[in-house]
């Protein structure tokens, strides 16, 4: 069924996911800025227009509101649109269509109409993108009833999660950590990027498979502290765990809504300590939700306050990007704090 595996980076895995899904279901259409003939600014949709035609893969006007509004209308017709928002930083003009329309259509029509759309959008920093090409707005969407939020951290998961998202009958926001499109990032920006081909997660089946939404992955087992992360920060945290030698259990959440609460709770009850890591700003970030859930479910098992390691509450800076980014220095200090008490 899944066929042979090939070495893929995340872009190739995402491209393969869309390709496989489109081949199986003619109702799937791809739309977005530059996604057609050119194949997308990150090349995630390369070759798809040629293969499936212009009425299934097409460029759009530069109007995120229009892209998502049109996608909702196409879904109402019976198609399954996979719109791309070129950078997550550009998604705000589409907020009304996502928050008030796509997210609530099933509820407000009592199931008469639904919006099975998967919005793909590259997010996160570490690429010198400044404040308009680096943001992590996942917390805006996890706050909305009716949206699912998915964030892969490697090629294998990216393909499996994206196919699962496209086949899901609810609207999904699929954030792609663009810093790790070509290779995982250990947080040391001054070192050369290691390509995905050097890592096991780059072995991706050619055919169809899914990684279920709502299931986290324990990347590394440990006994002293649980680290909850997603996207790029999974790799940064993993690297710091190895460098510091702390016996941490690293959980890659993969889906933020619906959250795999069982895996989180089981791990924290085992370790008694918890650290939440994300690149997004701190206040009202998804880490606040995680911290609250851990406290609600594991209060009597906690030996120290939950530590949040996040981006600062500032816009994403350009030249001071690495002072903003929650990298090895900040994670190392946070490990000291969480292990102290």
């Amino acid at each position, binding site marked *: 069924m899944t066929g042979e595996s090939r070495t893929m980076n995340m872009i190739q895995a995402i491209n393969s996911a869309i390709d496989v899904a489109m081949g199986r279901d003619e109702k799937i*259409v791809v739309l977005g800025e530059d996604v057609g003939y050119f194949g997308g600014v990150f090349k995630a949709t390369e070759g798809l227009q040629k293969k499936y035609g212009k*009425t*299934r893969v097409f460029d*759009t*006007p530069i*109007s995120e*509101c*229009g892209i*998502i*509004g*049109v*996608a*909702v*209308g*196409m*879904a*109402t*017709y*019976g*198609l399954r*649109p996979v719109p791309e928002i070129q950078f997550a930083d550009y998604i705000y*003009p589409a907020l*009304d*269509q996502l928050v*008030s*329309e796509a997210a609530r*259509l*099933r*509820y*407000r*029509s*009592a*199931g*008469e*109409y*639904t919006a099975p759309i998967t919005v793909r959008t590259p997010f996160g920093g570490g690429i010198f993108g400044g404040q308009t090409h680096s943001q992590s707005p996942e917390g805006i969407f996890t706050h909305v*009833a*009716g949206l*699912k939020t998915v964030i892969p951290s490697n090629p294998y998961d990216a393909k499996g999660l994206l196919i699962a998202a496209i086949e*899901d*009958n*609810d609207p999904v926001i699929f954030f792609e950590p663009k810093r790790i499109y070509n290779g995982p990032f250990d947080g040391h920006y001054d070192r050369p990027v290691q390509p995905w081909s050097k890592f096991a997660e780059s072995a991706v089946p050619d055919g169809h498979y899914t990684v279920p939404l*709502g299931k986290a992955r324990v990347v590394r087992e440990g006994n002293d502290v649980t680290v909850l992360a997603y996207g790029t920060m999974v790799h940064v945290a993993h690297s710091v765990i190895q460098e510091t030698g702390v016996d941490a259990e690293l959980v890659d959440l993969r889906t933020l*809504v*619906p*959250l795999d*609460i069982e895996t989180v709770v089981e791990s924290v009850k085992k370790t008694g300590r918890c650290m939440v890591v994300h690149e997004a700003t701190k206040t009202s970030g998804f880490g606040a939700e995680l911290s609250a859930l851990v406290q609600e479910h594991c209060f009597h098992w906690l030996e120290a306050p939950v530590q949040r390691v996040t981006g600062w509450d500032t816009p994403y800076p350009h030249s001071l990007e690495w002072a903003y980014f929650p990298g090895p220095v900040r994670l190392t200090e946070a490990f000291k704090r969480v292990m102290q008490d």
Partner: protein
Amino acid sequence: MTGRNLPPLSLHVPEPAFRPGDTVDFADFEMPVAGAVRRPPIDASPRDVRDMAYAMVRVLDDEGRAQGPWDPRLAPETLLKILRSMALTRAFDERLYRAQRQGKTSFYMKCTGEEATSVGAAHALDYDDMCFPSYRQQGLLIARDWPIVDMINQIYSNRADRLKGRQMPIMYSVRQANFFSISGNLTTQYPQAVGWAMASAARGDTRIAAAWCGEGSTAEGDFHSALTFAAVYRAPVILNVINNQWAISSFSGFAGAEATTFAARAIGYGIAGLRVDGNDALAVYAATQWAADRARNNHGPTLIEHFTYRAEGHSTSDDPSKYRSAEEGGKWPLGDPIARLKKHVIGLGIWDEERHAAMDLEVAELVKAAQKEAEKNGILQDGLKQSFDSMFEDVFEEMPWHLKEQSAQMHDERKAAGI
């Protein structure tokens, strides 16, 4: 800047012609002559119909006679069906408005004076064409013969409300009648209608889409995104702007009406724009038919401005006498859509005062009976509501753990409180 001798800048803030207490005089209104506007071929290039955006298509003249090339020459039964749908819509509005005043529901919105803009359009569309309405298109459902008892159940959020009491009154959703779920956020349905039409075209279907919004919400970004997409992909869609002059308390000048027409918005996008007398059911029918034929033959979208007047308040939540002259409605130069069509069919010899009075009575009784039927399933306030569990359903296709947990918590808390 030195060396310049200019007066200081001044900001223009629009002001309507008449405010409360003002004597209303529409003498400056240039009444377009019925039948005078040309009817271009349906494959006309948008560039060749630009004049239509500044003219006004009218079929019925002051004597109720149908004039000119836009006369749709409808069969007597169609004319009488349109008349009855408009009368039923008005009777429905009057009774449900009263129901809100009697405390049977929380909110209501009438479309009085604007009935032709929905009813006329609905008759010119095919039943399986998809409608993306705003909140004042109850006439579409009524024209499509959707049971009014179902509409009242929704207005009451009662046990029989198919929408499980989740939406404010009048925010209908009727998939079976090809009527999209109404949103309270304005003009979000515009790009959705364009997307639906694009999908229909991409799939080689024959169905087209139609959307409605008010003139006030043409200022929303969604409107302009929708027009861009409609033009770019030549989507088979009809984009209706109901220019009823008022957006709650803001007159059409706050949407740009002082400088141009709403139909003329189409010109900049390269879309055909028509401006029609929205109180003339035959003009609305004819314009919709033209746009539908155009769309169905792959000639692309049409924007239709329906020039009309909101004869009542925005909703049950505002008092129009606080912001506009009470005389405006009575002096509206384009008259009342029902009275005008009535005059027409009487003039044709297929209708008379007696039958009209009987019809008014019949539709009023019909609404009354439907209301009584709906009230068997409860009104908003009487406790005959949806099950508490239904609050957590349909957020997602399958209920995730956190909603199950919250649902259980709600039950536990209510139990502990003894309710």
